[in-house]
């Protein structure tokens, strides 16, 4: 028995013995997800038990080093853990932006003391993080951000505004890009900094989207003082001053990869095919075809594209495993996934007709089809617009010239 096989057997046993039955519904939604953080309250005893057992094992952040609260698993081991978890349909015990976004940056760029403080708190679900990148004037052109960060000797002084800070209203800390040098070329005056949201001068305003209430906020910084350091060798800045773009770029690639690998149409109808769903709702004509020829054509095209997309994710993954990295082709996946995601709910809105377009007296219900349909317009904008993906593909995949 190889070491990995042995590990798999151990993991299986551990999961079987430790994951409560209620946590084996697999279906994490923003509502039942375990986010952690100062304001966090467990939604059930089972959720709490599952979190605590996983934490004790280092399984809230399995690949992180043991000294920072992880289990120090190798990539192969982590894959096995994931497979076995999915095999029993178990939820992740903890998931949030600290794990997916800040963690990798700190692992790559942080000092030991920064990791000891922040990674450990993330692993333990003590601190919930939000991301402060975009600004009203810096969207696609993120590097043109203007939030000002001045050196005041023992502290930094921050003024400016961030937008699209998801869950800023319920987060404890924020990792932020700020401008520390207004003279330098735009990519070279940016600093990556960690700020306690409880600091004086920070205010947060939720953003209402076309789909209704959203996790997004605007976050305002008004003479916010940030200590230069949170302790010995534990500066508030990650990486070098004025080199924050390098840290952020890393994360953006990470984010794009995440967006690109969701399965676009599946979210629309569950396990069933969109076409079968349409057949049930609309019925077939005398030749056995869906009784709406134009819609039928659109559905078939979406299913065809979705199939080709899924295969492309599989192929690129296999290529990456064989040593040919995905690189800028991740932009292709991001582009197609966001188009298919929009397309899927559009089609379902058309299949369900006026039923789906009817909302309650209180407005668009959270989680309803109409809510998803409207929210999904954002997929081709957030995480780099489709236009930005096209620019990346033409420059970095096709090597087309610049003007």
């Amino acid at each position: 028995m190889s070491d990995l096989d042995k590990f798999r057997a151990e993991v299986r046993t551990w999961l079987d013995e430790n994951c409560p039955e209620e946590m084996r519904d697999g279906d994490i939604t923003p509502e039942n997800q375990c986010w952690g953080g100062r304001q966090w309250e467990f939604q059930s005893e089972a959720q709490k038990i599952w979190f605590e057992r996983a934490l004790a094992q280092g399984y809230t952040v399995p690949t992180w080093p043991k000294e920072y609260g992880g289990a120090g698993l190798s990539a192969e081991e982590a894959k096995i853990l994931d497979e076995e978890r999915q095999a029993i349909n178990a939820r992740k015990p903890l998931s949030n932006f600290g794990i997916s976004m800040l963690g990798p940056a700190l692992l790559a760029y942080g000092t030991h003391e920064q990791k000891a403080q922040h990674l450990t708190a993330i692993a333990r679900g003590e601190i919930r993080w939000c991301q402060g990148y975009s600004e009203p004037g810096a969207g696609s052109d993120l590097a043109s951000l203007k939030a000002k960060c001045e050196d005041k000797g023992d502290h930094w002084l921050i003024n400016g505004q961030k937008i699209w800070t998801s869950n800023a209203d319920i987060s404890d800390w924020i990792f932020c890009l700020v401008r520390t040098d207004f003279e330098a070329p735009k990519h070279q005056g940016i600093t990556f900094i960690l700020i306690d949201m409880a600091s004086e001068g920070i205010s947060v305003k939720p953003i209402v989207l076309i789909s209704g209430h959203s996790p997004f906020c605007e976050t305002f910084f008004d003479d916010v003082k940030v200590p230069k350091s949170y302790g010995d060798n534990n500066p508030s800045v990650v990486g070098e001053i004025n080199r924050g773009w390098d840290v952020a770029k890393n994360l953006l690639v990470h984010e794009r990869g995440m967006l690109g690998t969701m399965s676009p149409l599946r979210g629309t109808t569950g396990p069933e095919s969109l076409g079968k769903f349409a057949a049930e709702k609309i019925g077939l004509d005398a030749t056995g075809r869906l009784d709406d020829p134009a819609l039928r054509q659109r559905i078939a095209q979406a299913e065809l594209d979705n199939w080709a997309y899924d295969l492309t994710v599989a192929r690129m993954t296999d290529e990456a495993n064989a040593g040919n990295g995905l690189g800028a082709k991740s932009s292709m996946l991001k582009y197609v996934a966001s188009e298919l995601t929009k397309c899927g709910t559009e089609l379902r809105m058309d299949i369900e007709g006026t039923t789906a377009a009817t909302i309650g007296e209180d407005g668009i219900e959270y989680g309803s089809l109409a809510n998803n349909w409207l929210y999904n317009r954002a997929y081709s904008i957030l995480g780099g617009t489709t236009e930005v993906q096209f620019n990346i593909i033409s420059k970095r995949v096709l090597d087309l010239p610049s003007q």
Partner: protein
Amino acid sequence: MPLILNEEQEMLQDAAKGFLAEKAPVSAFRTVRDNKPADGFCRQLWTEMAQMGWAGIIVDETHGGSGFGYVGAGVLAEEMGRNLTASPFFSTSVLGATAIQKYGTEKQKDENLAAISGGETLFALAVDEGPRHKPDHIAFSAEPAGNGFILSGTKTFVADGHVADKLIIAARTSGDEGDTAGITLFLVDANAPEITRVHTPMVDSRNAADIAVEGLEVTGDDILGELDGGYAALEGILSAGRAVLSAEMSGSAQQVFDVTTDYLKEREQFGQKIGSFQGLQHRAAQLATEIEMMKSAVLKSLKDLDQDFDNAGMTCCLAKAKTGQVAQLATKEAIQMHGGIGVTDEYDVGLYFKRVHVAQQMFGDAGFHSDRWARNSGY
């Protein structure tokens, strides 16, 4: 007849622009949406519209209307589409007025047209019985009983059905569900106790109702048009509705495109106006072209209704198909080109996206009408 507005129609357009800018801009629609008055629109505004002659825009002057015909109605609808103006104009002054004026008896005209023109009586058309438009599938029952009929059945997505004073109901007096023969239109009092109306607010913040009728007794006098031959009348009313809805969607598409090109000229990223990027320019140029094509289609359908009402069905069908496609493209591109702020409720573009979706579904979307066109053309 040239495919342009005449002087009178242009003056109407100017007046509409001025009135709506003052009384019913998009901000007024937001107020209605957020305050949720029971009617779903502003009664005071509707009264003023009626005073302007809009409620009776297609009604003959002999019946208190302003006699502008369908081009006139389209001119108003286009401006309302630009401003997202919520009012009973469509259900009462287009659908109701068309039904009575084109298919009513003299008595029905006398009783209703002046009240429509005065903005006093509100109408609604009850056609669909499921979530998708299927006017040739009517199951709603009208059983003969004594001298009259007893109506029973349900209708869905009856626009403004929650506030209508009178309902026009397409019911089956003979034949089977899929037959176009055997359909009869009835004009009934919406407040009859046998009628239950459930308000269904729509995603575009306009309003409709699901209607259930149980054992409502009506007489032959309540028939609008021909017994068993109501499908032709229904088609006529729907054609008028399709053309005017197309005009409204055309206005929405033009407005949202104007807002978007303005934004392209202002917004800077990467040190340049984003409107200087050729990727966006070429998409804007294509959309501008589609909008010109759409405008021609809409104007033609309205003119055809005025010139030869009974044979305007196919151009109204084509107009609704083209407009549905272009308006949807325009609102999608508007959101995408605005980027992040395009998906915020604070910006107007999302409101147009929602309205166009519902207007597309009403009386058949582009797919419905392209299928209809092909079938009518023998393929």
